[in-house]
């Protein structure tokens, strides 16, 4: 389904409420004139990246995340485009993971975690009354920083998600398909009954990806998926991400700027202020953010001057 888009002046890029049929636009870097570049900055540049309505999987509206009274993420408004890889980069402790984990309500599991503002998932408020976090997580899968296969067989690792989702068809076929998509089938087809924990780190992480896609999610969230892997395993995962992009929307948090530059389509740069709360500095198509950052802080960060 194609959504009609119209260009309108980008003075107000706050996501429109569902009732107003106005369409937001994609502003490219070229459209930001010099005065805007100097202008009150961070939020301004962040708002410059917008996604045509209907093309956004997530729309964040002034999102803040809290652990108890500590604010980990402050006032983020952004849109995550469909079938693209969005990288979230930023210095340690700037709330990247917290932000990511709010996308599938994983932070619900942490005592005292709460949010203000809103995250809309295909236009539906993720934190609205009546939303079942279990159903949310079936649609929005997650791959974690440290490979965390279940101490069960490779087969059962993949089959667990479909089983609890009530999948009743050919499980062998689904397991094979998921492992193939995760580029792991050839490595493990002869030892599906051996424990997933016996695989190498890179294989374990691909097993975790296979596990995530076995429930046929819409979005895959990746929280620094390569931080525990060697460069070759990392490259494999990145290749895999490029392939998975055809079918899934991927949001990846990464420490590694080269990885964001290599593997992502869109990059969001977060940093934190004196209050240690992370905020969005700039979001733009990846090649643009890394070559012509609109914001000075971004430039300092990507050139290695801090972070």
């Amino acid at each position: 389904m194609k959504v009609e888009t119209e260009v309108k002046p980008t003075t107000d890029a706050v996501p429109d409420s569902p009732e107003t049929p106005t369409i937001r636009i994609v502003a490219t870097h070229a459209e930001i004139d010099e005065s805007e570049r100097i202008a009150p900055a961070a939020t301004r540049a962040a708002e410059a990246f917008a996604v045509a309505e209907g093309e956004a999987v997530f729309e964040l509206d002034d999102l803040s995340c809290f652990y108890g009274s500590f604010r980990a993420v402050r006032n983020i408004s952004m849109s995550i485009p469909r079938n693209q890889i969005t990288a979230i980069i930023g210095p340690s402790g700037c709330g990247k993971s917290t932000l990511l984990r709010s996308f599938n309500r994983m932070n619900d599991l942490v005592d005292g975690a709460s949010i203000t503002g809103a995250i809309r998932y295909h236009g539906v408020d993720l934190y609205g009354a009546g939303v079942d976090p279990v159903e949310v997580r079936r649609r929005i899968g997650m791959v974690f920083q440290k490979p965390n296969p279940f101490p069960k067989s490779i087969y059962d690792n993949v089959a667990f998600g479909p089983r609890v989702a009530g999948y009743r068809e050919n499980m062998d076929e689904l397991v094979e398909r998921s492992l193939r998509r995760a580029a792991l089938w050839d490595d493990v087809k002869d030892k599906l009954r051996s424990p997933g924990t016996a695989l190498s780190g890179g294989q374990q992480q691909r097993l975790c990806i296979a596990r995530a896609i076995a429930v046929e999610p819409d979005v895959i969230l990746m929280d620094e998926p390569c931080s525990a892997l060697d460069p070759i395993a990392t490259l494999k995962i990145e290749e895999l991400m490029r392939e998975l992009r055809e079918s899934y929307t991927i949001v990846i948090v990464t420490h590694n700027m080269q990885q964001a530059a290599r593997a992502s389509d869109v990059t969001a740069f977060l940093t934190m202020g004196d209050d240690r709360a992370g905020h969005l500095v700039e979001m733009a198509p990846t090649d643009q953010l890394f070559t012509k950052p609109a914001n000075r802080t971004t430039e300092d960060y990507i050139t290695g001057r801090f972070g």
Partner: protein
Amino acid sequence: MASTPRTQALTAADVVRRSIEGGRVDWRSAAVEALLVGLLVLTLGVLAWLLVVVFVNGIPVLAERGLDFLTSPLAARPDEAGVGQAITGSLWLMGFVALLSFPLGIGEAVYLAEYARAPWFTRLVNTVVRNLAGVPSLVYGLLGLAIFVVALGDVLGPGSASGRSLLAGGLTMAILVLPIVIITSAEALRAVPGSIREAAFGVGATRWEVVRSHVLPYAAPGIFTGTILSMARAFGETAPLILVGAVIGGFNVKYESVLETLQGRYTALPTTVYDWARKPQDFAGNVYAAIIVLIGVLLVVNALAIYLRYRFERRW
């Protein structure tokens, strides 16, 4: 050159060798080590002495009486008295305690470790349970006496048992080991890494599915070990059983049904040992023989716990 042999001979390797070879003798470390070994030998020595005394005095009785000692009932004469009723009673007690305290204790542990949300609540309950685990067993005996023997005696042990039934003893023991079962189970559950829970939640499992398919199976070896050790504790407890009326002396009843057994009188191994130890000198051999049986059963139980722990141990 021959005129400067010394400076030539002193290579870099010589300098290094001099600095690392032939250090002082470290008397202090040697003294500390000797002291520690001495303490260890002393402790083990006392234990070994105890065991030797027990075995030297007990083995002749066991050798002479053999199976007869293991099957004979309590009796007034030492050469007729055996631990048959005591073993049966202890096994009945253990079975009843396991049946009651395992599901209750593990269930409570699962609730505390996986479900309870309010931190102040879990902290409070944890503190209470830990303190209960430290309460002297005698206190549980008094509690059992007041509640299960006196207050509920007509139900639990009607008729000739006059309240002092196997049920009363079993319930008392179950309450006694419950805190230990809860603590060890909750620890085993908490040892399952959070990343495993996240992985399961991440593919859309409900809390119960996470607990049933992952947390409980992975924690099972730890839970088994803990619960079996708590059984061993209950097996050796004497004071509460004496308070709630395990038979000392002798009884001669044939029970026709499980209910009758549960509502009837009983005795246990440690109470039998206690009883015989108070008797005249001619029971001494029996006491030691009974202690050997008691130690034997405990060894088997502990070995089982250790085996289960190693057999199913997981590394993360």
